[in-house]
């Protein structure tokens, strides 16, 4: 939450997802926009941004890869330099037809069966984190626990030094949470990330091993090795896409359970509900809002969209749309019908969704096993991240 922009006063015509009010409590803002005659907000900030708030419009845009390009999925002041269809971080920044091959390459490493093998490592690490704070009455569910889990697991998958965790987290923060910084500052941050990755890649080239980095360096697409920018971009993506997001999802789930004793007691008594409850947490507290760029000037349901304007894809608002979900604003642990869009819709469906779900399940299982009783230590002191990934960043929980 950097607050480098003036505060928003009218969400319909001056929308800004980096505004501190939005980070703290976006729900009434979505409701207001969804309730208008035209459920699409606009802003001249960032060189033009649209914000469609309903499930129907979000899915229409996610499926329409012709009129909306993924060339960049992060709204910033500048526009991406890397051209379509590859973009800067394949496959998330790629459009068809390039996207298909770049995505297919990654999928086997993230299939349910491949991810299952990482479960014991993840579980042991969750216990290790809680051992480290044993005896304390108040634990920060974000700082002491959630934020570490995805970092450790992706570092293991990529074959990066596990002790570099703090470095990765700083990159994530710089790239994802500081979107309203001036472009020069963002560029500096990118260069630092680039230097770190170059060193890791060189080490893997000199000493190939059985991990995802060596796999990508060795991989072929259409019979040719991947271009170095492709390998680098994909590694950045894996590093960034999986960390903030999963950390937010675990943190929001803990936040909910710490504040809702009946739900917590129910999960402790009926642990078999956890997989359904996780889907409900993903629906109600979906962490990720994506973005597209408008390909050409056009009229979209009455909105005069201009080439190169941003369109945010607020999956979190779609998931709270009463037209798509019964009792959309309530958390119902065993919700039976739950076609939530937390992992996106269409061809860019989160490639890491099986990994994210495993990490959420294991993190919550271990926490509930160690602390069947817990509550918010300082409800007003909880802080949420802004930008396109939302989750608790400070979350003091009373466990003693």
């Amino acid at each position: 939450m950097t607050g480098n922009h003036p505060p928003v006063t009218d969400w319909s015509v001056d929308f800004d997802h980096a505004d501190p009010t939005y980070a703290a409590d976006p729900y009434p803002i979505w409701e207001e926009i969804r309730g208008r005659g035209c459920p699409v907000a606009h802003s001249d900030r960032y060189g033009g941004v649209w914000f469609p708030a309903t499930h129907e419009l979000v899915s229409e845009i996610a499926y329409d890869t012709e009129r909306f390009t993924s060339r960049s999925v992060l709204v910033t002041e500048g526009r991406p330099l890397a051209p379509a269809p590859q973009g800067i971080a394949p496959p998330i920044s790629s459009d068809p037809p390039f996207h298909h091959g770049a995505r297919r390459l990654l999928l086997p490493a993230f299939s349910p069966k491949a991810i299952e093998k990482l479960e014991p490592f993840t579980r042991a690490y969750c216990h290790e984190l809680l051992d480290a704070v044993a005896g304390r009455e108040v634990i920060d569910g974000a700082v002491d626990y959630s934020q570490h889990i995805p970092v450790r697991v992706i570092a293991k998958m990529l074959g990066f030094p596990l002790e570099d965790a703090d470095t990765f987290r700083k990159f994530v923060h710089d790239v994802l949470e500081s979107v309203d910084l001036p472009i020069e500052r963002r560029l500096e941050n990118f260069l630092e990330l680039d230097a770190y990755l170059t060193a890791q890649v060189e080490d893997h080239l000199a000493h190939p091993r059985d991990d995802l980095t060596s796999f990508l360096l060795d991989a072929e697409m259409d019979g040719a090795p991947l271009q170095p920018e492709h390998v680098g971009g994909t590694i950045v993506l894996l590093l960034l896409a999986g960390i903030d997001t999963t950390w937010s999802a675990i943190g929001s789930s803990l936040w909910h359970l710490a504040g809702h004793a009946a739900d917590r007691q129910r999960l402790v008594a009926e642990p078999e509900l956890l997989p359904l409850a996780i889907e409900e947490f993903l629906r109600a507290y979906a962490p990720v809002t994506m973005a597209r760029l408008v390909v050409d000037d056009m009229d979209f349901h009455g909105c005069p969209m201009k080439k190169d304007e941003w369109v945010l894809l607020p999956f979190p608002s779609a998931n709270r749309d009463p037209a798509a979900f019964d009792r959309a604003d309530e958390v119902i642990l065993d919700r039976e019908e739950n076609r939530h869009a937390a992992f996106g819709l269409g061809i860019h469906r989160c490639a890491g969704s099986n990994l994210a779900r495993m990490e959420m399940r294991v993190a919550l299982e271990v926490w509930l096993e160690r602390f069947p009783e817990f509550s918010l230590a300082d409800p007003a002191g909880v802080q949420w991240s802004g930008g396109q990934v939302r989750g608790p960043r400070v979350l003091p929980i009373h466990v003693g």
Partner: protein
Amino acid sequence: MRVRVDGDKCQGHNRCYSLAPELFDVDDYGNAHELNDGVVPPGLEEKARLAAANCPEYAVIIEEDA
């Protein structure tokens, strides 16, 4: 009752497989397909309905016996 996965719509969210592994499997690319020609054994009808009600892409199709 029978179930079917529409391969053109399926994007590999894996909801069906995790909710009803008796009825669906997934390949290495995460794409789902029905097991046993889609025939739903007696007693698993609820699971089949649950899978359909949770597929974000509306790719799980249920065919009720006439």
